[in-house]
C-alpha cells in the first residue's frame, strides 16, 4: 500500500491530474440489473410463464421421483429393519432323481446346537384343504394349505395378529386354527365376532386367530395353521419338519448360513435349500432404485428440453428486441449491461421455474406419500441439486443470447424495419 502511494507521489504533476480527471462511467447496480431483467419478463408474462414451465416440469419430475423413491425405500427399509435380516428359511431341496426329499428328523435339534441360533420354528405341511363347510367338493381349496406348526412360529416370523390369539400349549392339542392374512380374506373371515368354523377335510376346526401379513414368509399368508398335536390327533398326520425357520444373531448370520446345510443333512447337504427371507425385500429396494434411476434420467431429459426452450425464447427475444438493445446502448448501457440484462432474464426464468418445480415436486411427493401411508422424505440433495441445476441451465441457456445482444452494434440495433 505504502509503496503504491509513494509511487503516485513521485509521478509528475500532469500524470496525477490525468488520473484525477475521471471520465463519466456507466453504472448499473446488481439490483437494478435484476430489476431491468424482471421488467423484461413482466411485460411478456405469458411467454415467460410458458418458457419457465419446461424447467418447472423437469425439476418437479426430479424432486418427486427422488422424493417418492426415498419415501418408499425408507418404508421398505424400515420394514426390513423391523423384521430383521437374520431369518433363515430351510427347506428340503430337490433330490437327484429320487423325487422330493425331506429334511432329516433330527434337523431342528441339530440346528439348535449352532450357538448363534436363538430361535428355531418348524412347520409341517399337512395334506388336505380348508373349506367353509363340509358340502364343498374336495379340491376346491382356493389355494389355501394346511400347515402344522410349533408355538414359536409367530416369534420366529415376528408376526402379529389381526384378531384373536395364536396357538397355545392347550389350543394346539384341540381343533383350533389360525389363519394367514390371505387365507382369511379368501375365506371371507374378517373378524372373530362370531365363532367361525372351518371344515379341514376330516372335521370342523374353530378359527381362533387371524394373522397380519408376514412379509418374510408369504407362503404362510395363504395357510391355515394348526398345532402339531391337533394334526396328529385329528388329521392323522405324521409330523416332521418340512420348513424350518431359524433366527440367529445378526452379526453371525452369514456364518450360520454357511454351515446350515451340512448341519441339517451331513450326508447330502446339497439336498438342503437355505434362503434368507430378507434378500427378497432387499431386492425390492434395489429394484425401486433402478426405476428411480430411469425416472431421474427422464427428469433430466425434461430439464434439458426446458433449458433448450429458454435458450430458444432468449434468442428470439434478442432478435425481437433489437431496438430496445439499441435504445439502451444510446441511453448509456455498456455491452456488459446488455449482456447481464439478458443473462439475468434467463436466470430469473429458470430460477422461477426451478422454485416452482421444487414446490410442485414436494407437493406431488407429499400427496402420494400420504396416500400410501409412507413417511414423507424430501431428499435435501434433490432440492439443492434441482435449484443449482435450474440456475445452471438458465446460465448456459442465456449465455449465447446475452453475448449476441452485447455484441450487436448500436447503430445496427437502432435500425428500424
Amino acid at each position, binding site marked *: 500500500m505504502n509503496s503504491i502511494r509513494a509511487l503516485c507521489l513521485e509521478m509528475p504533476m500532469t500524470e496525477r491530474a490525468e488520473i484525477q480527471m475521471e471520465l463519466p462511467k456507466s453504472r*448499473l447496480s446488481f439490483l437494478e440489473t435484476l430489476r431491468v431483467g424482471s421488467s423484461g419478463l413482466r411485460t411478456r408474462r405469458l411467454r415467460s410463464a410458458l418458457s419457465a414451465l419446461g424447467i418447472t416440469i423437469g425439476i418437479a419430475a426430479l424432486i418427486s421421483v427422488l422424493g417418492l423413491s426415498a419415501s418408499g425405500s425408507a418404508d421398505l427399509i424400515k420394514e426390513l429393519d423391523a423384521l430383521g435380516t437374520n431369518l433363515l428359511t430351510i427347506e428340503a431341496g430337490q433330490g437327484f432323481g429320487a423325487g422330493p426329499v425331506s429334511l432329516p428328523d433330527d434337523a431342528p435339534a441339530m440346528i439348535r446346537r449352532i450357538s448363534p441360533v436363538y430361535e428355531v420354528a418348524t412347520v409341517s405341511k399337512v395334506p388336505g384343504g380348508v373349506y367353509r363347510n363340509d358340502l364343498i367338493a374336495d379340491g376346491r381349496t382356493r389355494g389355501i394349505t394346511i400347515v402344522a406348526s410349533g408355538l414359536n412360529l409367530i416369534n420366529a416370523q415376528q408376526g402379529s395378529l389381526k384378531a384373536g390369539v395364536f396357538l397355545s400349549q392347550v389350543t394346539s392339542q384341540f381343533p383350533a386354527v389360525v389363519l394367514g392374512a390371505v387365507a382369511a380374506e379368501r375365506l371371507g373371515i374378517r373378524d372373530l365376532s362370531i365363532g367361525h368354523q372351518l371344515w379341514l377335510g376330516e372335521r370342523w376346526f374353530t378359527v381362533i386367530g387371524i394373522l397380519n401379513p408376514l412379509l418374510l414368509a408369504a407362503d404362510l399368508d395363504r395357510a391355515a395353521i394348526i398345532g402339531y398335536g391337533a394334526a396328529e390327533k385329528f388329521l392323522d398326520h405324521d409330523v416332521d419338519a418340512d420348513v424350518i425357520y431359524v433366527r440367529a444373531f445378526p452379526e453371525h448370520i452369514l456364518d450360520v448360513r454357511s454351515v446350515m446345510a451340512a448341519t441339517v443333512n451331513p450326508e447330502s447337504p446339497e439336498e438342503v435349500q437355505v434362503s434368507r427371507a430378507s434378500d427378497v425385500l432387499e431386492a425390492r429396494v434395489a429394484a425401486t432404485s433402478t426405476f428411480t434411476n430411469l425416472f431421474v434420467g427422464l427428469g433430466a431429459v425434461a430439464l434439458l428440453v426446458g433449458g433448450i426452450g429458454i435458450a430458444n425464447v432468449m434468442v428470439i427475444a434478442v432478435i425481437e428486441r433489437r*431496438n430496445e438493445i439499441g435504445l*439502451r*446502448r*444510446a*441511453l*448509456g448501457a455498456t455491452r456488459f*449491461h446488455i449482456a447481464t440484462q439478458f443473462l439475468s432474464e434467463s436466470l430469473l426464468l429458470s430460477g422461477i421455474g426451478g422454485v416452482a418445480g421444487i414446490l410442485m415436486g414436494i407437493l406431488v411427493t407429499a400427496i402420494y406419500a400420504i396416500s400410501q401411508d409412507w413417511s414423507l422424505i424430501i431428499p435435501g440433495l434433490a432440492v439443492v441439486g434441482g435449484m443449482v441445476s435450474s440456475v445452471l441451465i438458465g446460465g448456459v441457456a442465456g449465455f449465447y443470447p446475452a453475448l449476441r445482444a452485447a455484441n450487436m452494434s448500436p447503430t445496427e440495433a437502432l435500425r428500424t424495419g
Partner: protein
Amino acid sequence: MSSLASDSPYAVELNQVSKIYPGTPPVEALSEVSISVPRGELLGIVGASGSGKSTLLHLVGTLTRPTAGSVFIDGLDTSGLSDGALSGIRSRNVGFVFQDFFLLPGVTATENVGNGLLYSGTPERERKRRAEAMLERVGLSHRLAHLPNEMSGGEQQRVAIARALVHDPSFILADEPTGNLDSQNTASLMELMVSLNHDGATVILITHDPEVAEMCARQITLKDGRIEFDSSTVPGNAHD
C-alpha cells in the same frame, strides 16, 4: 454538472470527420465534415436520404467511430476511447430522440423517462422524481402512469423528449423526431423544441423536412456526405 470538463464553449465539435463503410466498393458516407455546435444552439441538419445525416447522427452520438477525424463532446476528444467510456459519455452528455420513439412497451411514461437516468447510476426514487418533473415540463403531467400504447404519437414523442432531457445532457440529438407525426403534432413538437432551446438546451435536429429545419436558428444542409450549406457561414445570418 454531470457533464464532462465543461470549459469548452462547444457542446459538439466535428473535426475533418470522415466515415467510410467497408465493402466493394467502399461507401464514403461522410467526407471531411467539420461542424462546431456552440452551447445553447438549435441546429437543424437537413438532407435527402443517403446524404449522410444518419451517419452524422451516429457519430455525434458516439454510437459509431469515425474512419478519420475526431469528434469532440464537451471539449473531450472521443477518438481512442473504449466502448465502455463512450457508453459513459452517452449516459451523461447525450440525449437521444428517435423517429420511432423507442419507448419500452408495458412500462409507464414515468419509468420510460426514468430510464434516461438508469445507466448513470441514479437511484430509483430520484429517477422517479426527476422523470415526473420532466414530464411536467413537456406538458404530460396527466400521463405519468400511462403506458405507451395508451398515448398518442405526439404524446409518445414528448415522453421520448423528456427521457432525452431528464439527465441534463450537454445536447439533445433528435433523429427525424417529427417523422411519424401529423402536421399538427409536428408544429406543437417543434414549439416544444424551440421552447426547450430557449431554456438553454442545445438541440441538434436531423430532418428531411425543410419546414422543420426552417424553425431552427441554424441550418446545415448535407449532400453526398459533404456540407452543402451552413447558415452560420452566410454573412448577416450568423448565429449569436
